[in-house]
């Protein structure tokens, strides 16, 4: 059974105070849950959050399903998000993603075999000037080439 840490609960409570309706605090609360649940939000997390925030489960599930920033299934140790939107695509973002899949042994286009990496192709991450780029967990890596990207990922602890 998932539970937020003490700071997590405090954070959610504070966010609930911050908006006119507590429904507005669902997004920050879900971020917190995702952070503490190892990168994804499970159905149990939704149930837990609905009890904590005293909101219906469907409301939380609606938000969770709407946004792609929330992961609905477990992710690897490193969640690699490769931008494939206009600027990055023009500079080889899509090819970069294909290359990473090959190099990191990602067969189904999502998880590497050893579970270390999960790769998603995402829309604009707001770093067009430094395309192509990727985000690994919370960190941006910019001005990538195929080689440098693979090197960065392999060198991660």
């Amino acid at each position, binding site marked *: 059974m998932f539970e937020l840490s003490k700071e997590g609960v405090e954070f959610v409570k504070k966010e609930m105070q911050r908006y006119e309706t507590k429904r507005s605090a669902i997004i920050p609360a879900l971020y917190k849950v995702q952070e503490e649940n190892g990168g994804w939000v499970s159905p149990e997390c939704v149930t837990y959050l609905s009890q904590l925030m005293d909101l219906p489960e469907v409301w939380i599930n*609606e938000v969770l*399903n709407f946004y792609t920033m929330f992961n609905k299934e477990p992710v690897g140790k490193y969640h690699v998000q490769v931008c494939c939107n206009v600027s990055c695509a023009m500079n080889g973002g899509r090819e970069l993603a294909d290359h990473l899949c090959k190099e990191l042994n990602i067969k189904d286009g999502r998880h590497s075999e050893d579970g270390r990496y999960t790769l998603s192709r995402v829309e604009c991450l707001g770093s067009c000037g430094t395309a192509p780029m990727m985000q690994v967990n919370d960190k941006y890596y910019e001005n990538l080439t195929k080689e440098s990207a693979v090197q960065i990922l392999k060198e991660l602890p």
Partner: protein
Amino acid sequence: MLKCKINGVEVEVKEGTTIIEAFKIAGQKIAHYCWHPGLSVAGVCRLCMVEIKGQPRLQIACNTPVQDGMEITNQSEQVKETVRWGLDFHLINHPLDCPICDQAGECGLQDQYMEFGLYTPEMAEPKVKKHKVVDLGSKIVLDTERCILCSRCVRFTAEVTKTYELGIFNRGDRSEIGTFENKPLENNYALNTVDICPVGALTSKDFRFRQRVWYLQERESICTGCSTGCNIKIYFNEEGLFRIRPVYNEKVNGYWMCDEGRNIYKFVNKENRLLKAKKGRKGEWLEMEGGAAAKDVAHHFKSLDKERIALVVTGQFSNEEYEALFQFYKKNVGNDFVYHWINNKESFEDFDGLLLRGDRNPNTKGLLQKLEDYRYEQTWAHLEENLKAGKIETLIVAGPENPLWFPDLKEKVQQWGIQLSHLIWLSSAKVQAVDEVECLTWQIPLKTFFEKDGTYVNYQGLEQKSHRIATIVPGALSLSEAAHLMAGEEYKVDMAPILKGPKKNYYVHRRGYL
């Protein structure tokens, strides 16, 4: 009051009225899916577009309040084209599986398309595939591909039942309605979502695939499921009754009714009815017509000791029937051993906060009033005492129409079978326990609310008339008819037309297309 012109028709409306309401008041047609008078305004279907004189852009009628002097139309070419495009968009990902869809014939998409659409589709893209035949518990099946995301059902569970089961998940053309983790939708008002669903996304497990709606007739009546007395519409044909839906009545039920009430049609259909009158006891029954049995009772009545007769009544009959029964009792028996059989006593005062009341009788108020008028004041304990002491030999029971709501039925009947020498059992329902009693018994089949006229008084004291629709069991009597016949009077029994459905293709003719 505000004055406005709707398609050239002048109407006066109250302040705060929306344009779509004004259209309804003016009796003008307007296309819409998401707007429902009993729910909040969502403004998502974009079909109720209207043109307001002096405003360059079209507005949605459901979310625009009427202002004084507005001239509104939905007859202009611009509006018609917009609605056509709107419909085209609604149908982009709709599977068009009407031949196997249970909503066909009463589907909003079909209706609005014939009324406002009639375009040639221009979509060449493949359709988005979504979940089909999602099981939402014991009552409802969901087909998310057919859904047009009007959000009526979502608003219903949020605003009316406040149970918040349904939501819209995902986004864009992959949006679909559903419950969290496919939890079943089991609240007692869930079938209202099927009624308000304009398409075939939510269908009732009880009704789906049993009849095509164009083979059904519909008539209005009163629900006899509890003391609220919701106004209902019954759908039936020559094969029997198939479903019940609510009818708007501001004073009683609003737009809704509960799911338990929807089941009452099952107790009108032949399968659960006492079809023939019977005389005898366990193992030796003689079948006869209802009228003949009542006359036989009248004949036998003369030899009975009048001081050892008692009458038991339930709150399931109409005022007129109580009157006739008590008249009969007063004239032919004369004692005051009249007892009110209260079913599920513990939950009698319950109320679920919406419509369903613990008192599962349509006319308890009417019965109490009649008991008072005739000064019948005996308590149930008095009956039990007398039975035990052997002071009562004959019991006349005006029994339940729906035996499900009488949990003590079997136990009581068994007990009477031992304590009595004669039992006169008047009921529309087939009751196993009565077939097994040891004393001499007459079972007389009664008519249900569907087969007789009558007045019911609901918990508020509101009198509602229910009208005879058709006959299901030929030879069944109303309680008044039975009372007159048991009194030995000549009485003309209403045996009239056996249930006949509409002509095949009734709806097709009405609509004028095939």
